[in-house]
């Protein structure tokens, strides 16, 4: 991601050097490099968002087998004794699901609905509940589980990576690196499955499914909260266990790169304490790529984790997606996909805004 930062830095120095008095919009752009950067980045963000959502829309409309056709045909068979009612009902459903007119009309209708009314249309199976209601009910579970897991894994991975990088000649550090290399590409699902078998079924230590005990009443009370935490422990830990090593390897790599820099030798020659060198010189300068990694993982949180959530029947977005697919619930599936796209793009966009704030090198390049 350093690619991004140098690119923006380059663009900004360029706009600063051409600060000759220019007229109109261009002159304004030259005078406000930071705002220009934000505006340009925002325009790009909106453009990619639009393109990706349109792409998915097209993909779904071009898949063979339109589920709503099947649904209305089914209805037509049931209402065969009343031709008029039948036509009215089909017309009604086509209108509600935005299937009137050609592909372009449907597309503009979908986009209008999404952008102006923030409406994904009704869910097919839970008709007439809006698809967005279903998604927003599932979202807190996914966010709660994955946000906590992602942040915990990131912090621990960062510290572990800093330690293994700093003491890189220590055999424990070498061993951890090998273990990390072996584990980092193993899917979370595998760890979760083994964990469920060993801790859940064989030893009955942790619950194996759902987000809280069925008998517990939902609310902000101690009983409910402990139940939620207990149920989240196994899925969260299986995600943390794997993703910790990814962050560790990234941080370790960056630490060792930084340790080779001249200013670290200089700091040592100045007689700074190793503790200070490690924290203020090595770690601080190795930090930035890890922030990028965090932003990318946080953006991906909105996708939910289909396999892990499904294994635990955890009522999050990933589980909702599988249920919706099982019922061919068009609008919910599209909604979940759009939400995932939104998460990833927003994460990347915010990252580009935050990087200059946390990295003085990029700020000064302006």
């Amino acid at each position, binding site marked *: 991601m350093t*690619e991004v930062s140098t690119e923006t830095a380059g663009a900004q120095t360029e706009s600063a050097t051409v600060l000759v008095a220019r007229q109109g919009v261009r002159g304004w752009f030259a005078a406000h490099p930071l705002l220009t950067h934000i505006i340009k980045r925002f325009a790009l963000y909106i453009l*990619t968002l639009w*393109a*990706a959502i349109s*792409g*998915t829309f097209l*993909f*779904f409309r071009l*898949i*063979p*087998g339109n*589920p709503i056709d099947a649904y209305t045909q089914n209805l037509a068979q049931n209402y065969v004794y009343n031709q008029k009612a039948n036509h009215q009902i089909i017309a009604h459903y086509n209108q509600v699901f935005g299937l009137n007119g050609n592909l372009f009309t449907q597309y503009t209708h979908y986009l209008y609905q999404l952008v102006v009314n923030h409406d994904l249309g009704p869910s097919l199976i839970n008709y007439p509940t809006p698809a967005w209601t279903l998604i927003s009910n599932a979202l807190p579970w996914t966010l709660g589980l994955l946000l906590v897991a992602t942040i915990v894994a990131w912090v621990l991975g960062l510290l572990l990576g800093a330690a*293994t990088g700093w003491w*890189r000649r220590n055999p424990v*550090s*070498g*061993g951890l*690196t*090998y273990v990390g*290399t*072996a584990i*980092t*590409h*193993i*899917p979370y*699902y*595998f760890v979760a*499955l*083994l964990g*469920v*078998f060993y801790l*859940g*079924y*064989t030893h009955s230590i942790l619950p*194996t499914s759902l987000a809280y005990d069925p008998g517990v009443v939902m609310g902000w009370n101690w009983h409910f909260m402990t139940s939620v935490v207990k149920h989240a422990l196994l899925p969260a830990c299986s995600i943390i266990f794997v993703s910790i090593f990814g962050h560790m390897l990234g941080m*370790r*790599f960056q630490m*060792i*790169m930084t340790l*080779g820099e001249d200013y670290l030798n200089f700091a040592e020659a100045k007689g700074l304490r190793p503790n200070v060198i490690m924290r203020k010189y090595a770690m601080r300068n190795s930090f930035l790529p890890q922030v990028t990694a965090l932003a990318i993982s946080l953006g991906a949180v909105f*996708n939910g984790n*289909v*396999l892990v959530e*499904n*294994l635990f029947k955890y009522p999050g977005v990933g589980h909702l*997606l*599988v249920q919706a*697919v*099982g019922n*061919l619930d068009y609008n919910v*599936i599209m909604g*979940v*996909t759009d939400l*995932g*796209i939104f998460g*990833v*793009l927003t994460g990347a966009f915010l990252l580009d805004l935050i990087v200059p704030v946390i990295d003085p090198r990029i700020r000064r390049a302006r």
Partner: protein
Amino acid sequence: MRRILGFFRAIGRSPKLSLGLALLIIVVVVGFLNGWLIGLIRTHIGADPTAVSPNHWVHPNGKYLLGTDQYGRDVAAMTLDGLATSLKIGIIAGGLSTAIAIVVAFVAAYRGGLLDSFLSAITDFFLVIPTLPLLIAYSAFAKHVSLLQVGVILAVFSWPGAARTIRTQVLSLRQRSYVDLAKVTKLNTFEVIFAELAPNMLGFLALGLAYAAVASMFALIGLEVIGLGPSGVIDLGFILNLATSGGALTLGAWGIFVAPIAIASVVFFALTLINVGLEEKYNPRLRKVAGG
């Protein structure tokens, strides 16, 4: 030719590369000998191992090395079948996606200009679209999906990552003097790309292939785990689905899910080793980094 020989010599020098390749070759050979190995199991058991039999949920023992599933089928034989399918999807989707990535990246980076901007925009666009939901939806809507179709869809959505890395590499390579020399001697674009540039990036291309293959193998496993995916094929994910839906977890039949997980993990581990080894080879600064 000399460059290719040098490439193999470099593999011999790196323990990570050699170990990774050795593991991978073993798994691939086992995968492709699956017919023969299943034949061995058949004579060992004395019946067709993948046929339904009354011996449900036998725990791993001398006769059924990994036990049986809820229909009395031998898990070891099914796992071998599953491995072959997983490798197949890896080759189909991985190969196709790398091919797309190579063409897009080379054309974009070598030609540059407007074409580059256009192709890069398309790459970024595909990079954003989440593959799994689309694939899940496609397999659910289109009732009968073949392995090849899944492979093609995976390839269509998974090439951008590799295209990006290859493009960056080509951008730096095309400034070298030997490329100028080749241009002066009036080689055309394709000759420059395939005779001069590509051989110098063999490792990178192999890396891209390895990544794409792993990603598509896991995508198919994920699809099968939630009960979708191509009809009439057994892959490692299908066996995991059998395990979770059939009650293997409660019955303690560990063979049925430990075996696919172990095999898939070995493949992932081998490819990670190859990846780290190749990165060290191409970026000598890293040699001191990768511990031990």
